């Protein structure tokens, strides 16, 4: 009756194809349910994140195309995003701090998911609020960065005094879209955290919402890893 079982069992012989690969073939070949034993919300979130991957990749690839086709010099990001600490200019300091803040928020989120599955309501909610606070810190620092660039340095999407005009367009699109994701994530985390605190998921006996929110949050961190490497460090 269940074709998948037949496929998996038929080839289960010593020295044959590994079990996980046989399961893969079975899951996809059975024409019934590809994401077996996966919460539907989680599967949907992964598919959304996959589509989001393509959106961010489009931005990054267009940035690559612009940067490698301009003849004017590209602005030196280390200097543009540097901060003055006691008269000494430290390159990329603000961005480094933002990176650490976002990584820390991912760490607290991973622990929140773990506590969620242990049915520890208070620890889960507290860690999620901590994650949201770190996320809000990140967005505030980004707002500071944008303000500095727009008003002090005079960067516009179509012009900047430091070099290639395309710099502004890339910068505002990429970091703006990422900042939007972080902001939405903060709102989502606060909503889920308040539901955790009110015992909503205890009544349903299902803490998957915390893990799904976590997936989104880690993805935001993941995208920042690529932006940090390609836009700021390159």
């Amino acid at each position: 009756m269940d074709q998948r079982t037949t496929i998996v069992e038929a080839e289960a012989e010593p020295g044959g194809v590994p079990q996980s690969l046989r399961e893969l073939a079975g899951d996809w070949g059975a024409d019934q349910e590809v994401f077996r034993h996966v919460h539907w919300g989680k599967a949907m979130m992964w598919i959304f994140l996959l589509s989001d991957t393509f959106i961010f990749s489009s931005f990054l690839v267009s940035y690559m195309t612009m940067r490698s086709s301009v003849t004017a010099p590209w602005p030196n990001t280390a200097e543009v995003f540097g901060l003055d600490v006691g008269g000494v200019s430290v390159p990329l300091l603000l961005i480094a701090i933002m990176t650490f803040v976002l990584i820390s928020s991912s760490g607290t989120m991973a622990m929140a998911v773990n506590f969620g599955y242990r049915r520890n309501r208070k620890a889960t909610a507290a860690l999620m609020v901590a994650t949201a606070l770190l996320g809000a810190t990140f967005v505030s620092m980004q707002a500071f960065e944008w303000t500095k660039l727009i008003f002090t340095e005079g960067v516009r999407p179509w012009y900047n005094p430091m070099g290639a005009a395309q710099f502004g367009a890339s910068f505002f699109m990429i970091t703006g879209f990422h900042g939007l994701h972080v902001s939405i994530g903060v709102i989502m985390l606060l909503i889920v955290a308040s539901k955790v605190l009110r015992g909503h998921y205890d009544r349903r006996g299902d803490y998957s919402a915390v893990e799904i929110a976590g997936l989104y949050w880690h993805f935001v961190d993941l995208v920042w890893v690529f932006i940090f490497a390609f836009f700021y460090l390159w």
Partner: protein
Amino acid sequence: MNHAPVPIVEDGPPPAAHEAGEQHPIRVYLVVWGYLFVLSTMSYLVDYFHLQGTLRWTLIILFMLLKAGLIVSIFMHMAWERLALVYAILVPPLALGTLVLLMSIESGYTFWTRVLFLGGGG
């Protein structure tokens, strides 16, 4: 969720990912957190010490991929998912390599057109 015409016999092991997710000690996440901090610091130092050329790009991409791998496999639990889900999510982005290749050819063409015919003006 299931629209199969035949009833599915729930056989085999119980939901692997969720059960597994419950049992990881917190220490795993703290260790990964630590690794991510170290890797970020190292990629920051690449810029701080003004490394240039191939060495710079290799190190940046190396640290980036290590960080991305840690986040996806441990924080996003990909390491404990069934292979059907892992492949459904991780294989499609490989198509982006084609886009990168095409656009780098295209940008080279644009660059030389600008240099040769537009007097080097951006």
